[in-house]
């Protein structure tokens, strides 16, 4: 059952007449008003201290406002006191590791240029080897491990790394996981999953650059 609103303790004349001591007013308001109301009107704390700093007019005004707004104790979501909060937190168990927050749609697209075997897909932690050529949107090549001639291919090795472990840009980690062995695909990666605002000036990748890779997944170990 909801408690009834508190009643006025003094009549208008009593309040006007200087009969009511400040301390009584303060006590009344502290007893009946919501915490937030008291905070806003600077009426929290030791009564003596409040009496020192608050003028009679302020208190009368607050008193009136209290009844007008009806912001009594229990009428509002009382802010749980920080002390209680603090006590609760110190007892709280250690937070469990959170799963990474879902960031929304993937920031790359893949188009298959040559089909793979469609059965062998790499898992996180597998070592994959690939040939690749990376270009900027304007077509300029900034990196490639494909040697110029087919003959020379025997002398160089495809790039090998453990996929899905954060060793390469995110676009690659995510893109390679959905390629099958033998597949050649075109990955278009937004800058957020590539080199972002910084780019890679040493490698001629400007800030906020979208990168396009032609990748051939040679093997999975």
């Amino acid at each position, binding site marked *: 059952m909801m408690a009834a609103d508190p009643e006025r303790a003094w009549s208008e004349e009593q309040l006007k007449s200087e009969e009511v001591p400040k301390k009584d007013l303060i006590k009344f308001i502290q007893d009946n008003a919501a915490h937030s109301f008291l*905070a806003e009107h600077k*009426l*929290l704390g030791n009564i003596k201290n409040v009496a020192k700093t608050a003028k009679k007019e302020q208190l009368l005004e607050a008193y009136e406002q209290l009844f007008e707004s009806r912001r009594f104790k229990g009428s509002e979501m009382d802010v749980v006191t920080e*002390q209680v909060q603090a006590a609760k937190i110190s007892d709280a168990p250690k937070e469990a590791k959170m799963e990474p927050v879902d960031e929304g749609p993937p920031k790359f697209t893949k188009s298959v240029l040559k089909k793979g075997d469609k059965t062998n897909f790499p898992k996180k932690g597998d070592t994959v080897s690939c040939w690749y050529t990376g270009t900027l949107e304007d077509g300029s090549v900034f990196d490639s491990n494909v040697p110029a001639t087919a003959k020379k291919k025997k002398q160089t090795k495809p790039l090998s790394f453990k996929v899905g472990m954060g060793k*390469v840009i995110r676009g690659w980690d995510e893109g390679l996981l959905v390629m099958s062995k033998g597949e050649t695909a075109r990955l278009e990666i937004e800058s957020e999953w590539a080199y972002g605002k910084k780019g*890679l000036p040493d490698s001629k990748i400007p800030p906020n650059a979208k990168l396009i890779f032609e990748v051939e997944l040679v093997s999975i170990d």
Partner: protein
Amino acid sequence: MALEQLCDVVQRCQAIKDEGFSPEDYDLFFTAGRTCIEEGNSAQVLSILVDEKNKNIVRCMGWNLLGPLVQILLKKEDRNLPHCHAILSHLLEVCSPKELLVGLLEQVEEADTGSIAETVTLLLKPLQTALLRLGVKKASSVGMALSTLLSQVARLPVPVTKEQEEDDVFGLCHCCTALLQFVKPFVEEIKEVVKDNNKISKDNELRVELLKFCMKSLSKPLLEVQLKDPDTLLKSPLRDFATEILIILSSIGESLPDLLSRNVLKRREVPGFLEEEVRYPKESLACLSYLLFVDHIAVDIFPAVLSPIFVLQCNMEYIDLLLSRTEESRLQKGLELYEKSLNRVEDNNLPVDLLELKTFFSVPQNLVKVMTLCPDQTLRTKGLKVFQLSIDKFNTEAKYKFFKGMLKTSHHAGVEGYIIKNIKNQVDFSLRPCNGNDWFLGKHLLPLLRLVLCLPHGPETDLLQNLDRIMESLNLLRYMLIRDKEWENETGIWIELYKIEDNYLKPLRTGLNMSKAHYEAELKSAKENKKISSKDSKTSVCSVTVDNEKLPNMTPEMQIQVLQSAVFTFDLIESVLARIEEIIETKERPLL
């Protein structure tokens, strides 16, 4: 005379069957031959040596003449040179390659500092010729040769300015360029193996020797060298050397990204594990990383797909190594590598689990040492700059954990003060709209504040020594009390306040009063002492000896200055403390 002796012994030996020459024969041949060469009769010696009849003799004994021959060649006297070169060529053709190697390498090893460059330059081609004659068994000899050559070349002074590199007075640049030529056929051989078999065994002996050579070069001289960029010096032999070493590594099957991440990726214990460690010295890898990421050497053979955070993780091992040294050149390189690696990462991006890694703790520790102890001021300043840069890259939770760790372990008031200033910036940031987080507001902030707002030794804490820390913590507190309204109390400071008063402000006030009183008394007595002994105002008050040298005496004037400045410092602390006490006084505290 000597020529006759030579002819005699050769004639005698012609008759001996099956190369059964005696030690005396060897000695005579050597002594006579040497004298002839030294006396300038190289033409005659040549004709004796090329004579078909003497083929066996030359094959067995000829290589002993290498010593005197090389010495004459180094003297570069025109009249002798063509014949001596011809003798050398002949010996290289006829004598046993192994023995030739011994003779040649001995000359390299024995070269004194002044003649290293010349000797190396002279002997590289002959050495190469001898080695190539060894055929498939050459690997260990190649290794030995490379090791000897590099050891000597590494002794040459490293050019510092671009002019010095251009002038190459001591010949380091020339030798490095020549070494690349020397090593070329062996690298080509390995490339052929790779081409034919699509792969190469990691333990292929020749490959291993080339790997050792590259690793050794990376350590000396390349780690010493300060490479100039193409804008400063267009043609730089040292830059070319560095580039070629990286290309060689790649050609012999060492993937540069794999090399960099060696210390980061977990390795299973494989047989010969220790051998693996020896093959890849950390210092060499540190140089490799520096060349790639700071000097931008061979970037076009380094894949541009690695994640910047992973690159940082790999480089932390090398940064740690470089920053734990005392030589300023190493510290400089460590700081530059750290700065470059951090700059590749976006702000607020490094996750908290990186702090679990050993290097993410030891590097800041080393950095603090540089910031506080390094005698060179530019390094100290740069250290601080990189320190702040590293903080900026951590995400909020990681910053929190880092600050907490540093406050607990740095034991240096200046560093603590700097961290506290960073905490203030984070609190300020968090209080702005939409920036709220659990770490610098409320819940977790209070435990952090308890580390900030405390006196290590209560009221007896040395306030002067801890000045930086105390001032920053008072600034932080003042800031929070003004910025965070008590009815909002987003930081939780208003609830904590009574504790802060008891644990920090009151003891601080006590300590401050005590210190002030003490120093003011000292000041008064010092002034009185000064008046009394005004005639001998230069007499010392106390003497200090450091390292058996007496420091200049502290005069009464100086003592008064010091005491006065201490008193001013206390006034400074007091002014902030008083302001805080004032703020608390005028605002209501939620007493519950």
